[in-house]
């Protein structure tokens, strides 16, 4: 009896090992996009629309254009659960596929771990609006592409917006600004910039960490109640954001003095709080809504055919649109690489890296693709892996997000030296050198 059980167990294990060993896929003329995502765990409400947007955009390009110049796009998702070790496993699993394009780790922690591995495997990391702030410097980080903004530019823009509302940056003097942050690399990233700015303008910076995942914030908000900061910056993700807004409501902290990063400014963060979050501001990395052409195309070519990844009414929400935008940057990098290395062929990840580094999406191009109202032009170069740092401020009115008309751009004069100094320290720690300018043409 026991022996038969042992045999069953052994068979199950052997079958599993066999599946692991045979992961060979049919090779073909296909550009493969590994999609790391998290649809489970405490961050799933935010991770899911993001992942759905990324998938739907690839499906739409296949259905509408037949791929990129005839090259079909394929993808496979791998669930990380926002855990770094699972993310690394997913990366190792998917990176060996033929036609692998680039990796968007969808998590700051996984980005840190992969920053060490990507140069060895020669796979670019696309981290739009998150990741290592210092990796904007393309001369130090050849394989990282932190496009459209980092936590440093985000923090800078929030301070600019506060300054503007006060009538000038000099009015920040003597004010007290509290940073309520997720106690992880993600939450700590903005601190160096805030410290720099606090020295410049003479405001007091108060750091209030919240233990991950962020559902327990009573102690933090007790501190807010005690010290009454003039502004609260919210650096949260997932359940932490709505909890913070509820705590602010309970504490009686005015929500219109709260500014969230762009990861704290989507529908899942405020929907449950409703009117309780009225007046709360957050950065907007991208526009949202259903009236953009690209979103209508996705509805027409994917969702109306019954092939949508998530629910149809989620299409056009903030995080969904961000997923679409991030995937568009990846697809356009392949298109750009094809212009140089051969149209209609599958690009290697190294060639895609060149594409990412030479991206030039002007307003006309964005309008023609239907991204005109979603983002501002992006143009990357060898030295500048960010391409643009424009963002807007949006405000929750109790039922929907209203994006302000003003576009802000991070102050280059403050950021450039910080990025350079941080990159130099990183390279020195690793005993590595900056890229040779001649390397730019490769």
């Amino acid at each position, binding site marked *: 009896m*026991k*022996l038969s*059980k*042992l045999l069953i*167990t052994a068979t199950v*294990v052997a*079958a*599993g*090992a066999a*599946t*692991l*060993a045979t*992961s060979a896929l049919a090779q073909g003329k296909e550009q493969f996009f590994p999609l790391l*995502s998290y*649809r*489970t765990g405490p961050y*799933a409400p935010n991770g*899911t629309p993001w*992942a759905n947007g990324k998938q739907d955009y690839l499906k739409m390009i296949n259905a509408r254009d037949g791929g990129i110049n005839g090259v079909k796009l394929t993808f496979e*998702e*791998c*669930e990380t*659960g926002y855990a*770094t*070790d699972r993310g*690394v*496993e997913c990366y*190792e*699993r998917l990176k*060996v596929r033929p036609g692998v394009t680039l990796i968007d780790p969808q998590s700051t*922690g996984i980005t*840190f*771990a992969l*920053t*060490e*591995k990507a140069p060895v495997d020669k796979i670019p990391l696309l981290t739009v609006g998150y990741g290592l702030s210092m990796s904007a410097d393309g001369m130090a980080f050849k394989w990282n592409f932190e496009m459209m903004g980092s936590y440093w530019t985000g923090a800078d823009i929030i301070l600019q917006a506060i300054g503007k509302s006060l009538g000038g940056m000099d009015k920040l003097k003597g004010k007290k600004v509290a940073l309520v942050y997720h*106690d*992880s*690399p993600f939450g*700590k*990233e903005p*601190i*160096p910039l805030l410290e720099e700015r606090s020295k410049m303008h003479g405001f007091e910076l108060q750091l209030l*960490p919240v233990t*991950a995942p962020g559902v327990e914030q009573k102690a933090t908000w007790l501190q807010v109640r005690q010290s009454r900061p003039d502004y609260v910056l919210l650096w949260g993700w997932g359940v932490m954001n709505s909890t913070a807004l509820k705590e602010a409501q309970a504490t009686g902290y005015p929500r219109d003095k709260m500014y969230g990063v762009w990861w704290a400014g989507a529908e899942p963060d405020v929907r449950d709080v409703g009117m309780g979050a009225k007046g709360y501001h957050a950065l907007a990395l991208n526009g949202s809504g259903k009236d953009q052409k690209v979103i209508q195309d996705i509805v027409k070519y994917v969702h109306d055919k019954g092939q949508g990844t998530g629910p149809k009414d989620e299409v056009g929400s903030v995080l969904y649109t961000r997923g679409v935008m991030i995937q568009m940057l990846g697809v356009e990098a392949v298109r750009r690489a094809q212009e140089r290395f051969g149209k209609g062929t599958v690009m290697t990840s190294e060639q895609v890296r060149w594409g990412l580094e030479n991206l030039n999406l002007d307003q006309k191009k964005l309008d023609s693709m239907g991204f005109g109202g979603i983002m501002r032009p992006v143009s990357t170069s060898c030295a500048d892996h960010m391409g643009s740092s424009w963002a807007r401020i949006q405000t929750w009115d109790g039922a929907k997000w209203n994006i302000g008309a003003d576009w802000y751009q991070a102050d280059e004069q403050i950021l450039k030296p910080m990025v350079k100094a*941080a990159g130099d320290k990183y390279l020195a*720690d*690793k*005993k590595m050198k900056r890229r040779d300018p001649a390397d730019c043409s490769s």
Partner: protein
Amino acid sequence: MLYRENGQFKTTYRSDQQIFPIAQDRIAIGLLLAVAFVAIPLFASEYFYTSILIPFVIMSLAALGVNLLVGYCGQISLGSGAFMAVGAYGAYNFFVRIPGLPLIPALILGGLCAMFFGILFGLPSLRVKGLYLAVATLAAQFFSDWMFLRITWLTNESPSGQVSVNKLKVLGMALDTPVARYLFCLSLLTLIALLAKNLVRGAIGREWMAIRDMDVAAAVIGIRPMYAKLSAFAVSSFIIGVAGALWAFVHLGSWEPAAFSVEVSFRLLFMVIIGGLGSIMGSFFGAAFIVILPIVLSRLLPAMGDLVGVELSTATVSHVELMTFGGLIVWFLIVEPHGLAKLWSMGKQKLRLWPFPH
């Protein structure tokens, strides 16, 4: 007839005291080592190393350490993640602050840091035991979480709390390929497992087991509880610390305090309970179950879905994976509460009698 030992007579104490007194066992272990050291490097792919073998080997080492404490000495600990973290950050600090320090001394120094930390948090074990001790060691976990998030000196003033190492070298050889990293971890594991096995067979292991089975009776026959308990904490946290340093240096390369969260402590405890308390072999089984099975399931389920023509979404696969994993844990513990190691030794026992069971 498969496994017969008649005719193997021991005529010296030496041969009676071997680790594997039966010839077939010695051959099997020799074959296993040959496969692990020679055959696997000949065939395995890079994915196999980095995602399966290396995590499995390192977690086996950590589980081994936990098993010495929990399984052999009976001191339930929920602070194993903290010991790993102290080992990792300790080794990191020695590594970056002493230029030119080779990797192996750094690992040993990291293990020593974890050892002192373990002894410190083992002190309550002299007063409390069982669940109370588990909660007391949980304090070690929370303390280490706090320490590595807040004391920036320990993370070399890294603004985000994330630290990394690269360009590892052992005895002049670069650990830059997955094979080299795997063989390095495997050698350490083999060495430490051998030491641990001998330790638990010797006087000190017997003292631990006596304390585990009945501490009052052990004290009556002359075993010093303080010495036995603290030595168990010391040896165990040294091994866990080395495993933590390997996990950080060799497996992750770049890590944050969350890599050694309380979840790791729980997983290590599950490993020894599922694998088998008080068994060196059980640590390996437990590590395999907890580390490899979720990955196997996450790949097996979509393949099984394809067989019956159902396309499973990522979220469904991940949920089914968690349910299956939980179900299997319950099933294994019901079938054999003493863990997989007990199943294994029962299988061996059956084979010794086969085909005439009684």
